[in-house]
Structure formats: structure tokens, C-alpha cells
């Protein structure tokens, strides 16, 4: 279970990294906690790995005028430990702490996770629920995508070859906002069967997100609209709306998966409502 041969470069600036990514068939690698497994199993190949884990441009985070910026190279553990400013009322630290295992969280990065876009990953769900955007460095400079646009499919995003996800941006969640996050997996650190997030921003419209679908995390728009109209909407009324949302978000899910989705979303909402 050893990888095939590849070349390796570790540029020391974003500009150098972009140059390295442009000229050849290159694969960016951040923490490598998923990529190396795929390489080891020879399920994927790389001709050149561009190690972006030490780029200073990807490590900075700031909270400025209500906008949180997190460098793509920030590790899950740094977020878990509160080493980056929090603008999520604690949600991101909690979600970070539930990713895989501590030894993996110390190395794996938020940007790497988003770029890979594993359907069972936590960050797409969490960041979609928080209304975040990603910043992509391309050939012609930076561009921004809302999370909902960025995620396009199973292991696919709007990232093109030669591009790099450099940071995550999101509006700070107002103080007093509430959130809930639920993961269903057969054991700690195992691939999730379902991920549910609910964010009830103080003074804003509720957001609900489903993850661990066959494709990618999705906003549950009907439920969100219903909750926007009536934040205290009872479960009996909400449940059928949620089911419609779920059916659309994960159309190929079997009956068991659908139940899991209902359960995590319900749990997330209960948690957000403070039950």
C-alpha cells in the first residue's frame, strides 16, 4: 500500500505555487490527510504534488468589520482550539473537533477538505450553513464563490486545474445566534451516514443544510423559507417539508439514508432551538 512515483515541489509563496500549478499536470496538496490515502491505495495518481501547506498566504486568518477570513491552510485543530477568531458562535470549533481524529485534525486543513469535497465531509455542511464563500486564486486573479455554487458534485467543485482555494470568507454570525450540528456515523471518525446543520441567526433567516448525500451538501430551501415565516414551526408541520427537501437534496438515497437525514436534521434543529 505504497504510492506510485510522483514529483514534489514546495513553493514558498502563493505566486510561486500558482506558477508551479500552471505549467504542468500538478496536484495541490495541503495536509494530504485524504489525498495520501488515495495515493497509497493507488486509487488516484499524481505526476507532481505541489505542497501548499506552508504557504504564508494560506495561513492567515482575521476577523475584520464583521467578515471572517480563514486561510485555506488552517488546520482543523487550529479551529478546534480557537487559534483563529471565531465568528460562528462556537459552531466551527465544535464541528472541527468532530472531524476524524485529533492526529488527523492537526494536519488536515479546511481548504484541503473543501477542495476535495468529499460528500461525507463536515466543512461543506458547516460553511454552507454559515453562509460562507470561498476565494479561489486563478490564472486571472481572485474570484469568490458562495459555498452553494462552489460545490458541484461528488468530489467536484468549481475549482479548475491550476487553481488554488486560498481562503474562506463569511459574515460573522450575530451574537446570540443559535446553531445545531448532528452527525450520524457507525463509529467515531467513520464516514458519516448523514450530516445535519441548522443555524438560527439572531435577527436573520434560518439556514438548514444536509450533508453526506450522494453528491454534495445542500441548503434545504423550502424548510428554510418555512422557518423564516414561522421560526417556531412545529415538527409535525416542518417534517413533511423537510422530507421534500431531503428527497431533492439526496434523490438516490435509500429509505434508510432518508431516515438518517431526517434524524440528523431534527437533532440539529432541536439543538439550535436549545432543547
Amino acid at each position, binding site marked *: 500500500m505504497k504510492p506510485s512515483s510522483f514529483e514534489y515541489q514546495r513553493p514558498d509563496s502563493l505566486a510561486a505555487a500558482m506558477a508551479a500549478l500552471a505549467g504542468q499536470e500538478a496536484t495541490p496538496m495541503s495536509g494530504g490527510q485524504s489525498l495520501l490515502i488515495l495515493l497509497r491505495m493507488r486509487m488516484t495518481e499524481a505526476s507532481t504534488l505541489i505542497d501548499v501547506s506552508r504557504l504564508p498566504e494560506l495561513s492567515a486568518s482575521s476577523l475584520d468589520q464583521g467578515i471572517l477570513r480563514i486561510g485555506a491552510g488552517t488546520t482543523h485543530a487550529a479551529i478546534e482550539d480557537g487559534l483563529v477568531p471565531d465568528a460562528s458562535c462556537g459552531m466551527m470549533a465544535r464541528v472541527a473537533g468532530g472531524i476524524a481524529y485529533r492526529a488527523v485534525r492537526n494536519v488536515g486543513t479546511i481548504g484541503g477538505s473543501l477542495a476535495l469535497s468529499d460528500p461525507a465531509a463536515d466543512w461543506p455542511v458547516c460553511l454552507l450553513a454559515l453562509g460562507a464563500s470561498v476565494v479561489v486564486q486563478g490564472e486571472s486573479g481572485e474570484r469568490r464563490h458562495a459555498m452553494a455554487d462552489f460545490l458541484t458534485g461528488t468530489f467536484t467543485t468549481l475549482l479548475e486545474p491550476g487553481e488554488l482555494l486560498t481562503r474562506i470568507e463569511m459574515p460573522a454570525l450575530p451574537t446570540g445566534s443559535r446553531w445545531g450540528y448532528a452527525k450520524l456515523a457507525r463509529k467515531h471518525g467513520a*464516514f458519516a451516514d448523514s450530516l445535519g446543520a441548522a443555524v438560527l441567526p439572531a435577527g436573520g433567516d434560518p439556514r438548514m443544510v444536509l450533508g453526506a448525500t450522494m453528491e454534495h451538501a445542500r441548503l434545504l430551501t423550502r424548510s428554510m423559507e418555512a422557518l423564516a415565516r414561522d421560526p417556531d414551526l412545529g415538527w409535525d408541520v416542518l417534517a413533511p417539508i423537510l422530507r421534500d427537501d431531503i428527497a431533492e437534496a439526496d434523490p438516490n438515497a435509500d429509505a*434508510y439514508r432518508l431516515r438518517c437525514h431526517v*434524524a440528523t436534521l431534527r437533532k440539529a434543529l432541536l439543538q439550535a432551538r436549545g432543547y
Partner: protein
Amino acid sequence: MAEQHTLEPDDHAPTTGWVGASVLRKEDARHLDGKGMFVADVIIPRTREIAFVRSNMAHATLIGVTKPEGHAHQVFTAADLGEIDHLTAGPEIAAFRNTVYPPLAEGRVRFAGQTVAMCVAGSRAEAEDLADQVGVDLDPLAVVIDAVDAMKPGAAKVYDSWQDGAFMTSAVKGGDVKAARGKAKFSVRRQFKMARQTCNSLEGRGVLAYYDRRLDELVVYMSTQGPHVMRMALAQCLKIPEHKLRVIAPDVGGGFGGKNRLTPEEIAVVALARQVDYPVRWIEDRREHILASAHAREHWYDITLHADAEGTFLGLEGEVYVDAGAYSLWPVGAFAEASMAARNLPGPYRIQDLEIRNFTVATNKAPLGPYRGVARPGACFVIERMVDELAHEMGIDPMDLRQRNIVTAAELPYTTVGEMVLDTGDYPASLRGAIELINSDAVRARQKQGEPDGRRIGLGFAFYTEQSGHGTAEWTRRKSRVVPGYESCVTRMMPDGTVLLLVGIQSHGQGMETTLAQIAAHELGLKPAQVQVRHGDTGISPFGFGTFASRSIVMAGGAVAKSSRQLADKLRAIGAKLLQCAPEDTTLADGQVMSGSGGVSFAEIGRAAHVRSELLPEDVDPVLEEFATYEPSVSGGAFSYATHAAVVAVDPDTGSVELLDYAVCEDCGTMINPLIVDGQVMGGVTQGIGTALFEEIPYDEQGQPLATTLAEYLLPCASELPRIRVKHLVTPSTFTEYGVKGVGEGGAIAPPGAIVNAISDAFKETGAFFNTTPCTPRRIVAALDAARDAHSSHEVGA
């Protein structure tokens, strides 16, 4: 479990001696410093690495193998390996259908993962590069993946010449089950499935082999549970005289049964070492382990339990299918599995009318081998689930039904219908002990009250007996090719009075470097720190069979006791001369032969025996070295037993199970080292929990395994488990040294029964039937749905 009072190996001996003391382990220090020496840690200069080319099809004709250009000399197929005598593996039963399992495929592949060729390079990565370039031309054949279907007329076959799909078909019969059926008020018929697993020792298999010119021997480092028998088999199939073949099991990172079979990779690596002038090694990776090491379990049952109006069991009948995979692993594959399952199905209950037909079926999957508990996790799961099902049908408490039918202390020894003699103990006391330990009343109260989060609480129990330390009688009964009827020990005292034990057994986590030292120290009046145990090397120890079948403390412990007592007699004879008294008037204590107020140290005796023979009595030979083999006087086995109790909380929406509590009330006779017994029990329970809830290798229709990494094959971690609690009853065996019984496997036997009974209990009123391990959330929800559907269709019908 009370806090253990522990002793270090160099503490003063307890007044009762070392047997029974919780001595902290001698083997800990090296492992805690990261200085253990596993096969992959053995460095021999110039070693080249091996990667295997494996079949990616489950069943196919092997048309040819194409070697990559320029690298032909690094790629070896069956034709390149020189002469190999294929071992005959399987029980010595006429009706058993022998098969040939070549180390590298010849003409046919019969499971996905079967070894086809081996590639040799300077690093494993390079060897894998080569393996990727080897062309394997396969012509697919019809695939057999279900053992029950494989026995139906017209089913595809793994072996063309066989009349049906079974390696072996037999029946275990006793009494008159037809009469029992006629008398029955209740006849509960159920079907069960226990999934395919693999042992998943954390260290996989591994072999390093090279020719040692100085010693003129082929040295094989191998992660095995039994180096002596492996040497015998390797010598036989590779035609190497045994005195020129040395097998060393260094530190072994767990075995659990899987490393007690000789596998094709091991044969192929040693075969290659015969013909190349460099050392070669193969270190199994996890994917290979899950794909192609000895698999285990995969039983299917269709069983009917007959009982009278009071719930007295009358008889048991039905069928057992064991999915044995494609081949038979030396020495006896998995071919005790089906009949052992059948013989153990009555459990500890008074059932004398039995008829179980059993089928050991060939499929296109990796060959089955033994795994902790062998057959009994399945048998226990089924009978204990059946007891709960019957109790539920009768509307009574399953534990009352158990008490009504279980063999009492007064009835022991009790000969079961499977002709096993349950020897000593108090089974009803174990049932009561578990009820108390799990705090049944409190669990029932909580269950009644209901959980605020809607989860359902369930309480389940399971009882088992564990045949241990069985010797000649039992293994000849099983027609075993190798009859592990004894173990051996040389107790050697050095000139300075310290002791070496050379044992044929092999320890890989069981702590025998400590417990065997304890026994010798106990017999010789030494401290365990003064006794070194040497095992796992055919070059230094006498012949032995190794560690499996819960036999080591009975067999090897007995051999150590016996040879140490022989040495004690000699020490007393020499000491008596030096003390000028009669040997009968001497005792051994504190490293001395004592008589009255005088004493002579072992060092003085050692000096006399080795370098001052003029001091020896006339009829005593020099040198202090005693050899013994040992088998208990009764070789049908000493039976340990336990009741396990599990408390679960199950989410009815998602089927998620949390194990809230787990308790064991067990009796393994005299404990040499209670600390180590607890470790064996808890470790076994954890593996049993894996069987019950997590572990499974499913296959798709094409015979492709759907779990090949630990992301799919889930092993329980501390985060999935409660604190396992253990209470001991101690009923010594009447026919083993010190009254010990084996305890290695037991922990793994009962968890599937206890846990699935608990899940069933949580949903008692729904009528849902839980019949498959692992009892996954998905299966739980399916069972609840099925019960709901059945209920509603019943209502419609009515």
C-alpha cells in the same frame, strides 16, 4: 471488579506462592519503550521486498501471466518457484473433499485476492510498481457467493468434479428428536446469519526468510502462533530437512486464530528464499489482510427449539451452513467449524435430543480459518437468541427460562449430547452473578421510565461454556491432521541459580513470559524476575504446538510445573547432600534449598552441578536441566464458562446502538494471574462486540469484497465501548495443574448473543426479529420495518 493488588516480578513472594498473584508483566518494558521486535522490525542486510500480484476476479481460468519487459527476473509465478509438494489440508475424514491450494495460482483462481505471482524489488513501493505492470489474463467463470444457494441443485460450482458444493456434509445426532418434536408444546423455528470476518490482528502477517550459510539453515522469521508446526509443514511442502529449517516467531502483534494456519504467501516467500541469494520479506498490509488472510465465521442457521408447556427444552434440530471459502488452509482449514457449531448448539442446557445437519460449503471467497471462539460465537448467538425467542413466545423472563433448563452444579460432570463432558462449576450461580453485576432491577426501572430522547433501553444476557486445554481425545475425535495433545518445557537452571524456561508454546500478548515464570517461580521458590521464558524459536525450544484453542495455560503451564518440579527434586537431592540431610527434609524457598535452620543457595547448587561435580551425590548427574511434556489426565477439555450481560440504548429512528454497560460473570477455575485473566476476558469481549455490532466483509454478486480497508471494516475503539466489568467465580478443574482452565477465547463467544438479545429486548413489544450479526443500524431499522409491515398486513387480513 475490585482494584487489583499487583506485584512486580521481583517483589517478595506472597505467602501463598506466585500462583494466583497479579504479577505485572515482564514483557511490558520493551513494548513501552517501543523496543518490541516484530517481523517487520528485524533488519537483515540486503533484504528485498515482495509484493504479490492478486486475482481481481473471484472465479476465473488463469490463462497466463505476462511479466513486464526487462523485469522478468523479478517476477515469479508458480512455474518459477521450483518443486513444491502441495500440502493436504483438512480433517482426515474419508468424506472430506480435499483440494489443492497452490501458493501461487495454477490454472484457476477461486477468489478475488488469490495470489497469482510475486514481485521482488529493493523497496515495497517498487515491488508494487512491478505488480501493477504484471499482466494477468483471466477468463471469468460463474461465481459462487452464497453457501446456502451453493447447495441447491444446478448451482455454479467452485470445483467442477464435485457432486455438490460442499467440502463436507455431516450430521450431529443424539437421542430422538422426532419424539421431542411430537411432545413439544412450543416449537420455535428461526434463521440466523453471522457475517464473515477476519481476525484483524493489528500486526498483519509477515515473513522474512534467508539462508544462513554459517549455520547451513534457512531462517524464517514469521508472525505465527505456532512456529514448530509451521516448520513441519514448510519443511514438508518445500522438501527442506527440518534440521536445516528454523522458524522464529519474534514478537507477534496478535493472532486470534488467523496466524494458526499456514497461508500461501508464507509458503511462496520461503520457497523463493530457497532459490535466491538474498533475504526476502513480505509484510502484509491491511488491505491484503482483509482481502486474503484467513477469514472467519460466516455461518447460516435454520434451527427449531422444542419445549414443553413449562418451557423445559426437549430437543433441537435444524441445519448449519458454514461458508468456508475456496480452499482449505493447512492443517485443518475451518473444518471443525460446522460440527463444533452443531455440538455446541445445546449450550449448557439439558438437551439430549438433537439433530443438526451441517454443511461446510465452498464459495469464491478467501479461505476460512479459526478465529477466537471458533464456531461457538455462532452457536452461542443462536441458542441464546432462541432461548430469548422462546421466552418471548411463552411470555416469561428469558433468565427464568435459562434457570429452568441449565445444568446445575449437582448435575456436573454432565455429558452433553455432543459428547462433551462439562466438568466443574456452578452455571446457575453465574446467571445470578451477571444479573446482579449488571444491576438488572435498575436497568428495568430505567427501561420502564423511558428515555427523554426517545431511545429504547434493552437488557440481554448470554451464557456459554468454553472447552479449553483439550488434548488427544478431543482432537482425534475431530480427525485433526495435527493432534495438539501436549506442550513441552525445559527448565534449565544456570550455574548462578537463575532459570531459563524453554517452551514449545508461543506467546503473543497472552503474557506467558510472566505467567509461566510465575509457575516456575512458584515451584522453585524463586521470583518471576529470576526466571526467563524463551519461546517462539524452533532453534532453541522443544517441540510444541503453539497458542490457540484456549490451551496454553493448561498445557504449557502444566509442562512448566512438571519440569520445574523435576528440577526441584534434583535441587533437593543436591542440596540435601550439601546440607547433610535427607532430601525429604528439604524445602525450596527464597532461592535456596532449606532444611531446618540451614540453607544452601541455588547458586551454590548451580556451581556444584556445573563446575564442581565432585560435590554431587553419587547417583545425581551434572547439569540442571529437566524436560517434560504435559497433557491433563482428562483430555476432553476443562470447561470455563460465563454469563455476559449487555445494556443497550437504541434509536428507533436510525437504529443507532449505544452500548451502555457490559458485565461478565465468569469462571475459569484457578487463575494463575487474575490481572492477565481480566485482560483476556475484556479483550475477548471487545472482539465479540465487533462481531455483534461492527465487523463484516460483505461480497457483491461478482464476488468482490466490499470491505477492504478499516474505513469499511469497522473495528471498535474505546469511543464505542463502555467499561467492561468482570466478576470471577472460581471452581478449580479437578484434572489440570492447579485447577486452571483456559480463558483466551471465552470473552469473544457471548457478546453477539448478549447484545442482540439486548437489542431484541429493547423492541420486545414490536415483534421485530433480529437475526444477523453485525446487528447494524440498517439491519435494526429493517427488522423494525418488517415487523411493522407484518403487523399492519395482519391487521388488514383480520
